[in-house]
């Protein structure tokens, strides 16, 4: 049995750690490239969303590398995500790969238990103690990446020599991924936070604040959104984003089963415009725009093309009373880097002009 899993942002770090610690045989999926995308697009139905195509591309690539047990999400009452595994199973079978799917449910109340039980099963029924310690180590890594990323988002717009923060972030990601024990991990984190704090900064420059909301996969996978955050950093924009995998796991694994809802405030903010959960992240997208309309200068709404919940959000967002500019970026396989950059530049120009006018008043 060789395990394989699809990419989704930095989620590969904890998963790889878990398998490495447990000594399970697994294939690390190659990072998303043009090839992944074209493989995925070629064998997917045309109307599906980008995450489906990219994850299918990942799964085909791991199958080529010899994986025969694939991990994919399932659930109910979400969006098309619940259908991914069903269809991808058939597509891979038609392509001639004899792969068995292991499905991880994302809509049960006690997700953590299901998740750990699944891993226990995959790791030859290893002891709970071993599983838990490996899991804890993986999650610490995810949390550390998140902490460093938050700092990078602050440094990117104000650094004097553009690109340093990003380079440091990539180095940190690699170092964290390779860290083999807690003390080393702690050291890495401290080092990189130190380095990021010492990056020469232009302190007179006041960056624009732009929030990024939208569908979790495309928000967190830089390949699918054309390195949105890096490009915004180059344009001198401070990115604010509440969605992250560390936060997702924190609430969905530990706090939601206890009855704590991280989005309560956001849902309350969205209430006058959207009263119901529409699956996916549609409700949260609307809520965050309304909630942060005072502190952010603008909102970039990222969604895959034909995403069900985000179409609803996209229809409702421009009609809210809280009036801040929204740029909707729809990601699909036809998306071009230059086109996206032009739109971003125009949007940032607009925000700057708005800020200037507001200050003159």
């Amino acid at each position, binding site marked *: 049995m060789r395990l394989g899993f699809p990419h989704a942002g930095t989620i590969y770090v904890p998963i790889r750690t878990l398998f490495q610690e447990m000594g399970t045989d697994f294939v690390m999926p190659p990072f998303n490239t043009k090839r992944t995308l074209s493989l995925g697009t070629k064998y997917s139905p045309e*109307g599906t969303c980008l995450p489906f195509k990219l994850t299918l591309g990942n799964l085909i690539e791991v199958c080529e590398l010899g994986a025969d047990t694939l991990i994919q999400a399932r659930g*109910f*009452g979400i969006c098309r995500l619940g259908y991914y595994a*069903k269809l991808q199973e*058939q597509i891979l079978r038609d392509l001639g790969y004899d792969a068995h799917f292991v499905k991880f449910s994302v809509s049960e109340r006690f997700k953590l238990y299901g998740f750990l039980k699944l891993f226990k099963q995959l790791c030859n029924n290893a002891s709970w103690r071993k599983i838990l310690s490996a899991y804890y180590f993986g999650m610490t890594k995810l949390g550390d990446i998140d902490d460093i990323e938050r700092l990078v988002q602050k440094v990117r717009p104000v650094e004097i020599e553009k690109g340093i923060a990003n380079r440091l972030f990539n180095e940190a990601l690699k170092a964290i991924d390779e860290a083999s024990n807690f003390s080393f991990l702690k050291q890495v984190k401290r080092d990189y936070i130190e380095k990021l704090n010492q990056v020469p900064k232009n302190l007179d420059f006041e960056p624009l604040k732009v929030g990024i909301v939208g569908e979790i996969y495309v928000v967190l996978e830089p390949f699918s959104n054309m390195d949105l955050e890096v490009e915004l950093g180059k344009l001198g924009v401070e990115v604010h984003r509440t969605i992250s995998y560390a936060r997702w796991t924190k609430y969905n694994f530990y706090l939601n089963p206890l009855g704590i809802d991280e989005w309560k405030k956001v849902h309350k903010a969205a209430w006058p415009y959207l009263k119901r959960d529409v699956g996916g992240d549609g409700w949260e997208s609307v809520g965050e725009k309304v909630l942060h309309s005072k502190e952010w200068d603008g909102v970039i709404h990222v969604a895959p093309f034909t995403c*069900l919940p985000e*179409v609803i959000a996209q229809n*409702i967002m421009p009609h809210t009373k809280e009036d801040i500019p929204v740029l909707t970026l729809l990601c699909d396989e036809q998306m071009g880097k230059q086109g996206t950059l032009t739109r971003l530049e125009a949007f940032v120009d607009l925000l700057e002009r708005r800020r200037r006018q507001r200050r003159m008043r």
Partner: protein
Amino acid sequence: MATPRIGIPRALLYYEYFPMWKTFFEYLGSEVVLSPPTTSRMLASGSSRVVAETCLPVKVFIGHVLSLADKCDYIFVPAIRSMEEKIHNCSKFLGLPDMTKAAAPEAHILEADIDVDKGKRQLYLDVYKMGRHFTWNPFKIKKAAEATWQAHQAYLAKMLTHSKTPLQVLGEMLGEPERKEKDNSNPWARVGLIGHPYLLYDEYVNYRLFTRLEDLGVEILFPEKIKKEDNDAAIAKLVEKAYWTYEGEVIGAGGYCLDNEVDGVIALAAFGCGPDSMMMDLLQRYAKRQRKPFMLLTLDEHTSETGLLTRLEAFLDMIYRRKAVRNNVAAGLKTR
């Protein structure tokens, strides 16, 4: 107080639940106003209000709402979350009232939530909440709900046993002039027509596909004609368990058609429809394995009548030739 007029748009779930809604509102003493069949103006006005990525049926729906806005006091827009346990609906239906409010602010909307997954108690409370708009008397609401349920069952039975299309049954109900029945007693082929009712029976959106097929002398097997057991069996065979509320119309009906004596299957889907984009692909793969002709027609506001007709004729020609070859009369192939 004058009787309130409740507007019901002739779009989306109208084909599925209209008798139900009509009974409920009329029992509680209000007048039901139905929007006229879809026109090109409705579609144009609807699509001008929503973003381009929204699917065609929703654009049509918004058009209907706009046409009703000044003709009635309230427009009934339900949010149907689930009709069975753990099987949820497409996001477009979940957020329909909110989206309609954003897109058509001039319309007064009567919202209702239906979520069977949350349990019977919640369902009864939701129905009661809806009834409270009209009467204070909970017993009257209960009676109305019972009558509603019976009306719905009668509607389903009529389609199943008399093999009438929803369009015919609803036409009878509304007293619309009955169309002359085509003498279709001796069809040369049997074709399965699958898809959501708001595509199959909206004659503007699909360019009278139903009538056209009948004119061409083909017997049509439509989703409502298939028994629920057969439908469920096909779903269980293809995908184990349904994921979407209206999966039966597509996977269930399609699977049943492909398993049975049908010469080909024509599927209708709207561009940008999330559930259909995946379900149709699943069916296409199954059709390939079953070696049955399968044609997927994707509809949007740019679909041209001639293009659709050409594809339809080509598909039927193909079925004709297949049959001819099968019957070993390939030598004397004649055009119809």
